[in-house]
Protein backbone atom coordinates (compact mmCIF):
# COMPACT_ATOMS: atom_id res chain seq x y z
CA UNK A 1 0.00 0.00 0.00
CA UNK A 2 0.96 3.62 -0.17
CA UNK A 3 3.36 5.53 2.03
CA UNK A 4 0.43 7.49 3.45
CA UNK A 5 -0.25 4.65 5.87
CA UNK A 6 -0.40 6.09 9.34
CA UNK A 7 -0.33 2.68 10.98
CA UNK A 8 1.08 -0.49 9.47
CA UNK A 9 1.39 -4.04 10.74
CA UNK A 10 3.86 -6.21 8.91
CA UNK A 11 3.83 -9.94 9.57
CA UNK A 12 3.37 -9.88 13.31
CA UNK A 13 3.40 -13.05 15.41
CA UNK A 14 2.05 -12.81 18.94
CA UNK A 15 2.29 -15.45 21.65
CA UNK A 16 0.65 -15.85 25.01
CA UNK A 17 3.20 -17.97 26.82
CA UNK A 18 3.93 -20.89 24.53
CA UNK A 19 0.79 -20.65 22.41
CA UNK A 20 0.85 -18.61 19.26
CA UNK A 21 -2.22 -16.43 18.80
CA UNK A 22 -1.39 -14.26 15.78
CA UNK A 23 0.29 -15.58 12.64
CA UNK A 24 1.91 -13.05 10.33
CA UNK A 25 -0.82 -10.46 10.67
CA UNK A 26 -0.39 -7.62 8.16
CA UNK A 27 -2.59 -4.68 7.32
CA UNK A 28 -2.47 -0.92 7.33
CA UNK A 29 -4.68 2.13 7.55
CA UNK A 30 -4.32 5.43 5.81
CA UNK A 31 -5.10 8.73 7.39
CA UNK A 32 -8.82 9.27 7.70
CA UNK A 33 -9.71 5.69 6.87
CA UNK A 34 -11.87 3.56 9.09
CA UNK A 35 -10.92 -0.10 9.15
CA UNK A 36 -13.18 -2.78 10.55
CA UNK A 37 -11.29 -5.77 11.94
CA UNK A 38 -13.89 -8.48 11.76
CA UNK A 39 -13.75 -11.99 13.16
CA UNK A 40 -15.52 -14.50 15.34
CA UNK A 41 -15.06 -15.11 19.04
CA UNK A 42 -11.45 -15.86 19.81
CA UNK A 43 -10.26 -15.03 16.30
CA UNK A 44 -7.55 -12.73 17.62
CA UNK A 45 -9.09 -9.26 17.30
CA UNK A 46 -8.30 -8.10 20.82
CA UNK A 47 -4.84 -9.60 20.63
CA UNK A 48 -4.19 -7.60 17.47
CA UNK A 49 -5.32 -4.41 19.22
CA UNK A 50 -3.14 -5.16 22.24
CA UNK A 51 -0.19 -5.88 19.97
CA UNK A 52 -0.56 -2.44 18.38
CA UNK A 53 -0.72 -0.57 21.69
CA UNK A 54 2.13 -2.63 23.14
CA UNK A 55 0.26 -4.61 25.77
CA UNK A 56 0.89 -7.85 23.86
CA UNK A 57 4.17 -7.14 22.07
CA UNK A 58 4.83 -9.20 18.95
CA UNK A 59 7.64 -11.73 18.95
CA UNK A 60 8.24 -11.23 15.24
CA UNK A 61 7.20 -8.68 12.67
CA UNK A 62 7.03 -4.91 12.62
CA UNK A 63 4.49 -2.26 13.55
CA UNK A 64 4.99 1.30 12.41
CA UNK A 65 3.18 4.48 13.37
CA UNK A 66 3.86 7.55 11.22
CA UNK A 67 6.75 5.51 9.83
CA UNK A 68 8.32 4.93 13.25
CA UNK A 69 8.93 1.29 14.23
CA UNK A 70 7.12 0.89 17.55
CA UNK A 71 6.99 -2.87 18.06
CA UNK A 72 9.63 -2.71 20.79
CA UNK A 73 8.13 0.30 22.57
CA UNK A 74 6.19 0.21 25.84
CA UNK A 75 2.48 1.03 25.76
CA UNK A 76 2.88 4.57 27.10
CA UNK A 77 5.41 5.37 24.39
CA UNK A 78 3.19 3.96 21.65
CA UNK A 79 0.28 6.00 22.98
CA UNK A 80 2.44 9.10 22.76
CA UNK A 81 3.21 8.21 19.14
CA UNK A 82 -0.46 8.84 18.46
CA UNK A 83 -2.29 5.57 19.13
CA UNK A 84 -5.41 5.72 21.29
CA UNK A 85 -6.62 2.42 22.73
CA UNK A 86 -10.17 1.71 23.90
CA UNK A 87 -10.21 -1.80 25.41
CA UNK A 88 -13.13 -4.18 24.97
CA UNK A 89 -13.85 -4.49 28.68
CA UNK A 90 -13.85 -0.66 29.05
CA UNK A 91 -11.47 -0.63 32.01
CA UNK A 92 -12.64 2.65 33.40
CA UNK A 93 -11.28 3.49 36.85
CA UNK A 94 -14.26 2.55 39.02
CA UNK A 95 -13.39 4.67 42.05
CA UNK A 96 -12.52 7.78 40.10
CA UNK A 97 -15.21 10.26 39.17
CA UNK A 98 -16.12 10.63 35.52
CA UNK A 99 -14.11 13.84 35.37
CA UNK A 100 -11.08 12.30 37.07
CA UNK A 101 -11.24 9.41 34.60
CA UNK A 102 -11.15 11.94 31.79
CA UNK A 103 -8.32 13.90 33.38
CA UNK A 104 -6.10 10.83 33.51
CA UNK A 105 -6.40 10.67 29.74
CA UNK A 106 -5.13 14.24 29.23
CA UNK A 107 -2.15 14.32 26.90
CA UNK A 108 -1.14 16.37 23.91
CA UNK A 109 -1.19 14.61 20.58
CA UNK A 110 1.67 14.23 18.14
CA UNK A 111 3.13 17.65 17.38
CA UNK A 112 1.58 19.16 20.49
CA UNK A 113 -1.96 18.99 19.13
CA UNK A 114 -4.60 19.56 21.80
CA UNK A 115 -7.95 19.60 20.03
CA UNK A 116 -9.72 17.74 22.80
CA UNK A 117 -10.47 19.58 26.00
CA UNK A 118 -12.89 18.77 28.79
CA UNK A 119 -15.34 21.32 27.35
CA UNK A 120 -15.22 19.74 23.92
CA UNK A 121 -15.63 16.26 25.39
CA UNK A 122 -18.70 17.39 27.32
CA UNK A 123 -20.01 18.97 24.17
CA UNK A 124 -19.65 15.76 22.16
CA UNK A 125 -20.69 13.56 25.11
CA UNK A 126 -23.43 15.55 26.88
CA UNK A 127 -24.31 12.47 28.93
CA UNK A 128 -20.90 12.65 30.62
CA UNK A 129 -21.32 16.34 31.40
CA UNK A 130 -24.40 15.53 33.43
CA UNK A 131 -22.53 13.01 35.60
CA UNK A 132 -19.06 14.43 35.96
CA UNK A 133 -18.85 13.81 39.71
CA UNK A 134 -20.31 10.30 39.59
CA UNK A 135 -17.97 7.38 40.26
CA UNK A 136 -16.98 5.51 37.12
CA UNK A 137 -18.05 2.21 38.66
CA UNK A 138 -21.61 3.47 38.98
CA UNK A 139 -22.19 4.11 35.29
CA UNK A 140 -24.21 1.83 33.06
CA UNK A 141 -22.46 -0.22 30.40
CA UNK A 142 -23.30 2.28 27.68
CA UNK A 143 -22.16 5.24 29.77
CA UNK A 144 -18.94 3.43 30.58
CA UNK A 145 -18.37 2.83 26.89
CA UNK A 146 -18.84 6.54 26.21
CA UNK A 147 -16.48 7.37 29.06
CA UNK A 148 -13.75 5.04 27.94
CA UNK A 149 -13.87 6.45 24.40
CA UNK A 150 -13.89 10.00 25.74
CA UNK A 151 -11.00 9.26 28.10
CA UNK A 152 -8.87 8.04 25.21
CA UNK A 153 -9.83 11.04 23.06
CA UNK A 154 -8.46 13.31 25.80
CA UNK A 155 -5.02 12.13 24.68
CA UNK A 156 -5.59 13.52 21.16
CA UNK A 157 -4.79 10.30 19.29
CA UNK A 158 -4.26 10.16 15.54
CA UNK A 159 -5.49 6.58 15.36
CA UNK A 160 -8.26 5.31 17.59
CA UNK A 161 -8.44 1.57 18.31
CA UNK A 162 -11.94 0.57 19.37
CA UNK A 163 -12.27 -3.00 20.60
CA UNK A 164 -15.86 -4.23 20.25
CA UNK A 165 -17.56 -0.96 21.15
CA UNK A 166 -21.01 -2.52 20.66
CA UNK A 167 -20.40 -5.58 22.84
CA UNK A 168 -23.02 -6.27 25.46
CA UNK A 169 -25.00 -3.09 24.85
CA UNK A 170 -28.70 -2.66 24.10
CA UNK A 171 -29.53 -1.98 20.43
CA UNK A 172 -30.51 1.61 21.11
CA UNK A 173 -27.16 2.27 22.80
CA UNK A 174 -25.32 0.51 20.00
CA UNK A 175 -27.02 2.87 17.61
CA UNK A 176 -25.84 5.86 19.64
CA UNK A 177 -22.27 4.57 19.70
CA UNK A 178 -22.52 4.14 15.94
CA UNK A 179 -23.59 7.76 15.54
CA UNK A 180 -20.76 8.88 17.77
CA UNK A 181 -18.23 6.96 15.70
CA UNK A 182 -19.65 8.55 12.54
CA UNK A 183 -19.20 11.93 14.13
CA UNK A 184 -15.58 11.18 15.07
CA UNK A 185 -14.94 10.07 11.50
CA UNK A 186 -16.35 13.35 10.33
CA UNK A 187 -13.69 15.05 12.43
CA UNK A 188 -11.06 13.19 10.43
CA UNK A 189 -9.84 10.69 13.00
CA UNK A 190 -8.40 7.40 11.75
CA UNK A 191 -10.14 4.36 13.18
CA UNK A 192 -9.70 0.66 13.66
CA UNK A 193 -12.81 -1.03 15.00
CA UNK A 194 -12.69 -4.67 16.08
CA UNK A 195 -16.11 -6.27 15.82
CA UNK A 196 -17.97 -9.54 15.50
CA UNK A 197 -21.01 -7.60 14.44
CA UNK A 198 -20.57 -6.97 10.73
CA UNK A 199 -23.76 -4.96 10.41
CA UNK A 200 -22.53 -2.47 12.97
CA UNK A 201 -19.44 -1.96 10.82
CA UNK A 202 -21.13 -1.60 7.46
CA UNK A 203 -22.10 1.96 8.32
CA UNK A 204 -18.97 3.10 10.06
CA UNK A 205 -16.11 1.47 8.16
CA UNK A 206 -14.50 2.28 4.85
CA UNK A 207 -12.26 -0.78 4.76
CA UNK A 208 -12.25 -4.20 6.27
CA UNK A 209 -9.81 -6.90 7.34
CA UNK A 210 -11.16 -10.29 8.36
CA UNK A 211 -9.23 -12.33 10.90
CA UNK A 212 -9.70 -16.02 11.57
CA UNK A 213 -7.67 -18.18 13.96
CA UNK A 214 -4.97 -15.53 14.06
CA UNK A 215 -4.64 -15.17 10.27
CA UNK A 216 -5.83 -12.28 8.16
CA UNK A 217 -7.99 -14.05 5.60
CA UNK A 218 -9.51 -11.14 3.70
CA UNK A 219 -8.83 -7.48 3.03
CA UNK A 220 -10.86 -5.08 0.97
CA UNK A 221 -13.17 -2.13 0.96
CA UNK A 222 -16.43 -2.36 2.84
CA UNK A 223 -18.37 -2.42 -0.44
CA UNK A 224 -16.34 -5.36 -1.69
CA UNK A 225 -17.16 -7.24 1.47
CA UNK A 226 -20.83 -6.40 1.10
CA UNK A 227 -20.78 -8.17 -2.24
CA UNK A 228 -18.72 -11.15 -1.09
CA UNK A 229 -21.11 -13.73 0.28
CA UNK A 230 -18.44 -16.38 0.46
CA UNK A 231 -16.29 -14.50 2.99
CA UNK A 232 -19.33 -13.45 4.98
CA UNK A 233 -20.54 -17.05 5.23
CA UNK A 234 -17.20 -18.62 5.94
CA UNK A 235 -15.76 -16.24 8.54
CA UNK A 236 -18.48 -14.03 9.87
CA UNK A 237 -21.37 -16.38 10.58
CA UNK A 238 -23.75 -14.16 8.65
Amino acid sequence: MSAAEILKLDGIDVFYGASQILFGVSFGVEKGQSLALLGRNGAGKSTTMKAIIGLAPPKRGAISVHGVAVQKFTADRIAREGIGFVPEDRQIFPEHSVEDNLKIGIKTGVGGRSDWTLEKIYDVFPILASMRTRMGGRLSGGEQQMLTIARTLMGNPDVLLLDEPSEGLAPIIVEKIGELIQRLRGMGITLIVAEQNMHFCLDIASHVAVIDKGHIVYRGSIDELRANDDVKKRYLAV
Partner: protein
Amino acid sequence: MDLDALMRCVGTTSCIVTQLTSGMIIGMLLFLIASGVTLIFGVLNVINFAHGSLYMIGAYAAWTFYQLTGSYFVSALGAAVAVGVLGVLFERFLMSKVYGSNVLMQLLVCYAVVLISDDLIKIIWGPVSLSMGMPVEFRLPPLRFFGGVVPPFYIFMIVAAMAIGLLLWLVIARTRFGNIVRAAAVNGPMVSALGIRVNLYYAAVFGIGSALAGAAGALAAPVRSLTPGMGFSILIESFIVTVIGGMGSIVGAFVASIIIGLTRSFGSIGFPLFVDGVMFLIMALVLIFKPSGLFGRPHNK
Protein backbone atom coordinates in the same frame (compact mmCIF):
# COMPACT_ATOMS: atom_id res chain seq x y z
CA MET B 1 -0.52 -6.98 85.69
CA ASP B 2 -0.93 -3.73 87.58
CA LEU B 3 -4.33 -2.41 86.68
CA ASP B 4 -4.36 -0.40 89.92
CA ALA B 5 -1.43 1.64 88.65
CA LEU B 6 -3.29 2.25 85.42
CA MET B 7 -6.35 3.41 87.34
CA ARG B 8 -4.20 5.72 89.45
CA CYS B 9 -2.67 7.16 86.28
CA VAL B 10 -5.95 7.91 84.58
CA GLY B 11 -7.02 9.52 87.85
CA THR B 12 -4.43 12.29 87.53
CA THR B 13 -4.25 14.74 84.63
CA SER B 14 -0.46 14.94 84.80
CA CYS B 15 -0.08 11.21 84.23
CA ILE B 16 -2.66 11.26 81.44
CA VAL B 17 -0.83 14.11 79.69
CA THR B 18 2.52 12.34 79.98
CA GLN B 19 1.20 9.02 78.72
CA LEU B 20 -0.83 10.64 75.95
CA THR B 21 2.16 12.48 74.57
CA SER B 22 4.44 9.47 74.79
CA GLY B 23 1.72 7.37 73.18
CA MET B 24 1.37 9.94 70.44
CA ILE B 25 5.06 10.01 69.62
CA ILE B 26 5.11 6.23 69.40
CA GLY B 27 2.00 6.44 67.25
CA MET B 28 3.30 9.16 64.94
CA LEU B 29 6.56 7.31 64.25
CA LEU B 30 4.52 4.23 63.48
CA PHE B 31 2.20 6.27 61.30
CA LEU B 32 5.00 7.62 59.14
CA ILE B 33 6.37 4.14 58.61
CA ALA B 34 3.03 2.40 58.16
CA SER B 35 1.74 5.01 55.73
CA GLY B 36 4.77 4.31 53.53
CA VAL B 37 4.20 0.56 53.77
CA THR B 38 0.52 0.95 52.98
CA LEU B 39 1.10 3.44 50.14
CA ILE B 40 3.64 1.18 48.48
CA PHE B 41 1.44 -1.84 48.96
CA GLY B 42 -1.68 -0.07 47.74
CA VAL B 43 -0.08 1.14 44.54
CA LEU B 44 2.56 -1.45 43.71
CA ASN B 45 0.96 -4.45 45.36
CA VAL B 46 4.24 -5.43 47.01
CA ILE B 47 5.06 -5.51 50.68
CA ASN B 48 8.32 -3.72 51.36
CA PHE B 49 9.80 -5.89 54.06
CA ALA B 50 12.88 -3.66 53.99
CA HIS B 51 10.93 -0.62 55.14
CA GLY B 52 12.34 -0.84 58.67
CA SER B 53 15.85 -0.62 57.26
CA LEU B 54 14.94 2.63 55.52
CA TYR B 55 13.81 3.95 58.90
CA MET B 56 17.12 2.89 60.44
CA ILE B 57 19.14 4.47 57.65
CA GLY B 58 17.11 7.65 58.07
CA ALA B 59 17.98 7.78 61.76
CA TYR B 60 21.69 7.21 61.18
CA ALA B 61 21.77 9.65 58.29
CA ALA B 62 20.13 12.31 60.46
CA TRP B 63 22.69 11.61 63.19
CA THR B 64 25.59 12.15 60.79
CA PHE B 65 24.06 15.19 59.12
CA TYR B 66 23.51 16.67 62.57
CA GLN B 67 27.16 16.10 63.48
CA LEU B 68 28.16 17.82 60.26
CA THR B 69 25.75 20.74 60.16
CA GLY B 70 24.64 21.24 63.73
CA SER B 71 21.15 21.93 62.48
CA TYR B 72 18.44 19.42 63.26
CA PHE B 73 16.01 20.76 60.68
CA VAL B 74 18.57 20.49 57.88
CA SER B 75 19.51 16.99 59.06
CA ALA B 76 15.93 15.77 59.17
CA LEU B 77 15.19 17.11 55.71
CA GLY B 78 18.46 15.73 54.39
CA ALA B 79 17.76 12.30 55.87
CA ALA B 80 14.27 12.16 54.37
CA VAL B 81 15.54 13.17 50.93
CA ALA B 82 18.51 10.80 51.06
CA VAL B 83 16.35 7.84 52.05
CA GLY B 84 13.81 8.81 49.39
CA VAL B 85 16.52 8.69 46.74
CA LEU B 86 17.75 5.38 48.14
CA GLY B 87 14.19 4.07 47.89
CA VAL B 88 13.95 5.03 44.23
CA LEU B 89 17.21 3.21 43.51
CA PHE B 90 16.01 0.19 45.49
CA GLU B 91 12.78 0.16 43.47
CA ARG B 92 14.40 0.64 40.06
CA PHE B 93 17.23 -1.84 40.47
CA LEU B 94 15.72 -4.51 42.72
CA MET B 95 12.02 -4.40 43.54
CA SER B 96 10.83 -3.64 40.01
CA LYS B 97 12.51 -6.86 38.90
CA VAL B 98 10.30 -8.96 41.17
CA TYR B 99 6.91 -7.26 40.81
CA GLY B 100 5.53 -10.19 38.88
CA SER B 101 7.16 -12.83 41.07
CA ASN B 102 5.63 -14.51 44.09
CA VAL B 103 5.77 -13.02 47.57
CA LEU B 104 8.54 -15.35 48.67
CA MET B 105 10.85 -13.98 46.03
CA GLN B 106 10.00 -10.41 47.07
CA LEU B 107 10.57 -11.32 50.71
CA LEU B 108 13.95 -12.75 49.83
CA VAL B 109 15.06 -9.63 47.97
CA CYS B 110 13.96 -7.44 50.87
CA TYR B 111 15.59 -9.69 53.44
CA ALA B 112 18.85 -9.47 51.54
CA VAL B 113 18.60 -5.68 51.69
CA VAL B 114 17.86 -5.84 55.44
CA LEU B 115 20.94 -7.97 56.12
CA ILE B 116 23.17 -5.87 53.92
CA SER B 117 22.03 -2.58 55.42
CA ASP B 118 22.40 -3.87 59.00
CA ASP B 119 25.97 -4.87 58.19
CA LEU B 120 26.72 -1.63 56.41
CA ILE B 121 25.47 0.27 59.45
CA LYS B 122 27.84 -1.74 61.64
CA ILE B 123 30.73 -1.08 59.28
CA ILE B 124 30.09 2.63 58.92
CA TRP B 125 28.75 3.64 62.33
CA GLY B 126 29.93 0.75 64.49
CA PRO B 127 28.02 -1.97 66.34
CA VAL B 128 27.38 -0.06 69.56
CA SER B 129 24.34 2.11 69.92
CA LEU B 130 24.53 5.84 69.26
CA SER B 131 22.41 8.64 70.56
CA MET B 132 21.87 12.04 69.09
CA GLY B 133 20.71 13.74 72.24
CA MET B 134 18.28 16.62 72.23
CA PRO B 135 19.07 18.85 69.21
CA VAL B 136 20.14 22.42 70.03
CA GLU B 137 16.97 23.84 68.55
CA PHE B 138 14.93 22.02 71.18
CA ARG B 139 17.02 22.57 74.28
CA LEU B 140 14.19 24.55 75.82
CA PRO B 141 12.40 24.31 79.12
CA PRO B 142 9.64 21.68 79.06
CA LEU B 143 6.06 22.73 78.58
CA ARG B 144 3.44 22.03 81.20
CA PHE B 145 -0.13 21.05 80.46
CA PHE B 146 -2.47 20.28 83.34
CA GLY B 147 0.49 19.43 85.52
CA GLY B 148 2.03 17.10 82.94
CA VAL B 149 5.50 17.76 81.59
CA VAL B 150 5.99 17.68 77.83
CA PRO B 151 9.35 18.26 76.10
CA PRO B 152 8.97 20.76 73.23
CA PHE B 153 10.52 18.28 70.83
CA TYR B 154 7.61 15.90 71.41
CA ILE B 155 5.20 18.59 70.31
CA PHE B 156 7.31 19.30 67.24
CA MET B 157 7.43 15.61 66.39
CA ILE B 158 3.69 15.13 66.66
CA VAL B 159 2.89 18.25 64.66
CA ALA B 160 5.51 17.46 62.02
CA ALA B 161 4.23 13.90 61.55
CA MET B 162 0.65 15.09 61.28
CA ALA B 163 1.62 17.78 58.80
CA ILE B 164 3.49 15.25 56.68
CA GLY B 165 0.52 12.90 56.85
CA LEU B 166 -1.88 15.64 55.81
CA LEU B 167 0.38 16.67 52.96
CA LEU B 168 0.61 13.07 51.80
CA TRP B 169 -3.15 12.72 51.90
CA LEU B 170 -3.64 15.94 49.95
CA VAL B 171 -1.16 14.87 47.31
CA ILE B 172 -2.81 11.49 46.87
CA ALA B 173 -6.41 12.71 47.03
CA ARG B 174 -6.27 16.09 45.33
CA THR B 175 -3.49 16.38 42.76
CA ARG B 176 -3.06 15.10 39.23
CA PHE B 177 -0.12 13.06 40.50
CA GLY B 178 -2.38 11.43 43.09
CA ASN B 179 -5.13 10.90 40.56
CA ILE B 180 -2.76 8.97 38.33
CA VAL B 181 -1.22 7.08 41.24
CA ARG B 182 -4.66 5.93 42.42
CA ALA B 183 -5.50 4.81 38.90
CA ALA B 184 -2.19 3.00 38.54
CA ALA B 185 -2.95 1.22 41.80
CA VAL B 186 -6.08 -0.25 40.24
CA ASN B 187 -4.98 -0.79 36.64
CA GLY B 188 -1.40 0.03 35.71
CA PRO B 189 -1.51 -1.27 32.12
CA MET B 190 -4.54 0.90 31.32
CA VAL B 191 -2.81 3.99 32.71
CA SER B 192 0.19 3.13 30.59
CA ALA B 193 -1.97 2.68 27.49
CA LEU B 194 -3.20 6.25 28.03
CA GLY B 195 0.34 7.45 27.42
CA ILE B 196 1.52 7.85 31.00
CA ARG B 197 5.00 6.65 32.00
CA VAL B 198 3.59 4.51 34.74
CA ASN B 199 7.00 3.18 35.81
CA LEU B 200 8.05 6.67 36.81
CA TYR B 201 4.99 6.92 39.01
CA TYR B 202 5.79 3.56 40.61
CA ALA B 203 9.32 4.73 41.35
CA ALA B 204 8.03 8.03 42.71
CA VAL B 205 5.59 6.27 45.02
CA PHE B 206 8.35 4.03 46.30
CA GLY B 207 10.53 7.08 46.80
CA ILE B 208 7.82 8.93 48.72
CA GLY B 209 7.14 5.90 50.92
CA SER B 210 10.86 5.61 51.61
CA ALA B 211 11.21 9.31 52.37
CA LEU B 212 8.45 8.91 54.96
CA ALA B 213 10.49 6.16 56.62
CA GLY B 214 13.57 8.37 56.44
CA ALA B 215 11.65 11.22 58.06
CA ALA B 216 10.45 8.84 60.78
CA GLY B 217 14.05 7.82 61.43
CA ALA B 218 15.13 11.44 61.65
CA LEU B 219 12.30 12.24 64.06
CA ALA B 220 13.18 9.21 66.15
CA ALA B 221 16.90 9.98 66.35
CA PRO B 222 16.68 12.44 69.27
CA VAL B 223 14.45 10.18 71.34
CA ARG B 224 15.60 6.64 70.51
CA SER B 225 18.95 4.98 70.68
CA LEU B 226 20.34 4.11 67.28
CA THR B 227 21.28 0.46 66.88
CA PRO B 228 21.82 -1.79 63.89
CA GLY B 229 18.58 -3.74 63.54
CA MET B 230 16.46 -1.00 65.11
CA GLY B 231 14.15 -1.15 62.11
CA PHE B 232 12.93 -4.64 62.76
CA SER B 233 10.56 -4.29 65.70
CA ILE B 234 9.04 -1.09 64.36
CA LEU B 235 8.48 -2.87 61.04
CA ILE B 236 6.46 -5.60 62.76
CA GLU B 237 4.42 -2.97 64.57
CA SER B 238 3.85 -1.03 61.36
CA PHE B 239 2.51 -4.22 59.78
CA ILE B 240 0.11 -4.59 62.69
CA VAL B 241 -0.93 -0.98 62.13
CA THR B 242 -1.41 -1.59 58.43
CA VAL B 243 -3.56 -4.65 59.04
CA ILE B 244 -5.69 -2.86 61.65
CA GLY B 245 -6.09 0.30 59.56
CA GLY B 246 -6.66 -1.52 56.29
CA MET B 247 -4.10 -2.18 53.57
CA GLY B 248 -3.78 0.80 51.27
CA SER B 249 -5.55 3.29 53.55
CA ILE B 250 -3.56 6.27 54.82
CA VAL B 251 -6.38 7.41 57.08
CA GLY B 252 -6.56 3.87 58.45
CA ALA B 253 -2.83 3.90 59.14
CA PHE B 254 -3.25 7.15 61.06
CA VAL B 255 -6.05 5.90 63.28
CA ALA B 256 -4.46 2.51 63.87
CA SER B 257 -1.09 4.09 64.72
CA ILE B 258 -2.68 6.16 67.44
CA ILE B 259 -4.50 3.11 68.79
CA ILE B 260 -1.26 1.15 68.95
CA GLY B 261 0.73 4.10 70.33
CA LEU B 262 -1.73 4.66 73.16
CA THR B 263 -1.95 0.93 73.84
CA ARG B 264 1.82 0.90 74.22
CA SER B 265 2.06 3.91 76.50
CA PHE B 266 -0.87 3.19 78.79
CA GLY B 267 -0.22 -0.53 78.56
CA SER B 268 3.30 -0.07 79.85
CA ILE B 269 1.74 1.07 83.12
CA GLY B 270 -1.21 -1.27 83.34
CA PHE B 271 0.04 -4.48 81.77
CA PRO B 272 3.73 -4.05 80.99
CA LEU B 273 4.32 -7.72 80.25
CA PHE B 274 1.33 -8.06 78.02
CA VAL B 275 1.53 -5.01 75.76
CA ASP B 276 2.53 -7.00 72.69
CA GLY B 277 -0.19 -9.50 73.46
CA VAL B 278 -2.82 -6.77 73.59
CA MET B 279 -1.61 -5.34 70.29
CA PHE B 280 -1.97 -8.71 68.62
CA LEU B 281 -5.32 -9.15 70.30
CA ILE B 282 -6.57 -5.88 68.81
CA MET B 283 -5.31 -7.01 65.44
CA ALA B 284 -7.03 -10.38 65.80
CA LEU B 285 -10.32 -8.74 66.77
CA VAL B 286 -10.17 -6.42 63.78
CA LEU B 287 -9.40 -9.35 61.51
CA ILE B 288 -12.36 -11.28 62.89
CA PHE B 289 -14.92 -8.49 62.69
CA LYS B 290 -13.57 -6.49 59.76
CA PRO B 291 -11.08 -8.60 57.81
CA SER B 292 -10.22 -5.75 55.43
CA GLY B 293 -9.21 -3.48 58.34
CA LEU B 294 -10.95 -0.49 59.86
CA PHE B 295 -10.62 1.68 56.74
CA GLY B 296 -9.75 -0.88 54.10
CA ARG B 297 -12.16 -1.67 51.33
CA PRO B 298 -12.88 -5.36 50.81
CA HIS B 299 -12.07 -5.33 47.10
CA ASN B 300 -8.61 -3.88 47.67
CA LYS B 301 -6.07 -6.37 46.42
